[in-house]
């Protein structure tokens, strides 16, 4: 599903990722961890093509980034749902419109959009917040809306960057439960986090990064 081959990413003489190699299969649930500056967010950005590698190749759902044309990037992104650390919600749109946007971009009709948005909101437990604006929601609720927007298009891969970073323990547990439900439906999930409690004793795969290097690939 996802493959990194000798991937290097450099920012102004600072190497964020160095010769990284790994592969993730369809339906896997993988954590990416390491201290701040280890390269976790860079790795996710490379997957959803917000950035390009300086060296090496990345393959995602059958697409090879080094041969991918600029015009094909939007279509690749439609296979990837992203839960951003800073949510990236549109503050002047309602919860419904924020989630529906992902489907409007894909060209869905309004009737189908309505059904899918309701389903996504049900999954994250926020059906009653349809007409609210993001500013009226708590951090945990905004995070759930971001998850709903990421999954509404039924992507094959779901990426989450520090999804519980700003949440209390109960909210964090709720969010992780949602991710497990999504994964159970066959979606490949990658979660970047520095919180080791999230994956301790889960038996799930963890990629450990330090200073841009992949230092370990083992069970949590």
């Amino acid at each position, binding site marked *: 599903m996802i493959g990194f081959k000798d991937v290097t990413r450099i920012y102004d003489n600072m190497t964020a990722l160095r010769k990284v190699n790994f592969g993730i299969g369809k339906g896997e649930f993988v954590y990416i961890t390491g201290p701040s500056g280890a390269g976790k967010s860079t790795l996710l950005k490379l997957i959803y093509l917000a950035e390009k590698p300086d060296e090496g190749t990345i393959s995602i759902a059958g697409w090879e980034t080094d041969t991918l044309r600029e015009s094909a990037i*939007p279509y690749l992104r439609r296979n990837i749902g992203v839960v*951003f650390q800073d949510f990236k919600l549109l503050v002047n749109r309602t919860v419904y419109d924020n989630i529906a946007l992902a489907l409007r971009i894909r060209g869905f009709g309004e009737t189908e959009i309505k059904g899918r948005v309701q389903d996504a909101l049900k999954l994250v437990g926020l059906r009653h917040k349809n007409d609210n604006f993001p500013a009226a929601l708590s951090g945990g609720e905004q995070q759930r809306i971001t998850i709903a927007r990421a999954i509404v*298009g039924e992507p094959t891969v779901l990426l989450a960057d520090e999804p519980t970073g700003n949440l209390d323990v109960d909210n964090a547990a709720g969010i992780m439960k949602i991710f497990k439900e999504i994964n159970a439906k066959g979606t490949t999930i990658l979660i970047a986090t520095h919180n080791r409690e999230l994956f301790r004793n889960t038996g799930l795969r963890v990629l450990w990064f330090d200073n841009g290097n992949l230092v370990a690939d083992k069970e949590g």
Partner: protein
Amino acid sequence: MIYSIKLALKSLWFEKWIHMLTVVTIGVGLFVLGLIFFSLYNIEGITNRLPERFSVTVFLSAGTGNREINQLRVRLREDPIVKRIKYISKEAALVELRTSLKDAAYILEGLDENPLLPSIEIRLKENGFDKKKVEGLINKLKSLRDVDDVVYGENLLGTIYTIRNAVKTISAGVILLFSMAIIFVCYSTVKILFYRRKEEIEIFKLLGATKGFIRLPFLIEGGTLGFLGGLLGGAGTYVLYRFINGTVISDFPILGVMHMPLGLVAALPAGGAILGIIGSTIALGRLKF
């Protein structure tokens, strides 16, 4: 498409002050363009009527037979720039001369024979009133064996030609200038709107929006701004025309011949929309996203 229209309309409402300023600026520009077209239309009308006062007289050689005269008449009638012809025999010419001389007609009394030549008077078509075509016809006539001389209003022809060309050239220049100004206004507005929505556009991109999806609302917005500016300009032009017709005309009777083609009022919003879309397209083409 429907969602793009919704986005454009939402933006028109949220950024109403910028849009209002743009619409007024475009409206003023299109009002000036409307005035130019209005003036051009009327000047064209006036110059088109001038050929009615312009005639070419072909004097035939003495002794030209009826057969040759008829042949020439047929040939002239077939000419594409000739509207109508009138044959004046030497006898008719003498009667006409005698009438025009009035009390001085006695000077013709000593004549034993009629010294005047038969002639053909030619009136030209309005759309055939082209200096080169007219001169071509005259040169052709002069070369004929049975033609003694050709007389025509050389100065009038030159004047009409010069006025028409000058008006067209100046108008084309001003139209081009104002069209470019309107395109620039739309270009700048779309650029400002784009930067104001940059964060939103980033999110659109991350969710998988194509460039076409991102561009379409801006194109609709640019077209709408141009259209609204055109409505304003068209209304201004029409109000001015009504004012001229109602108030100014009594002081300046010459303006009484002026007309306002209604198509012009309708064309301004359409023209505005096209210029708006062009401005937006250029702006979006130059923006990196």
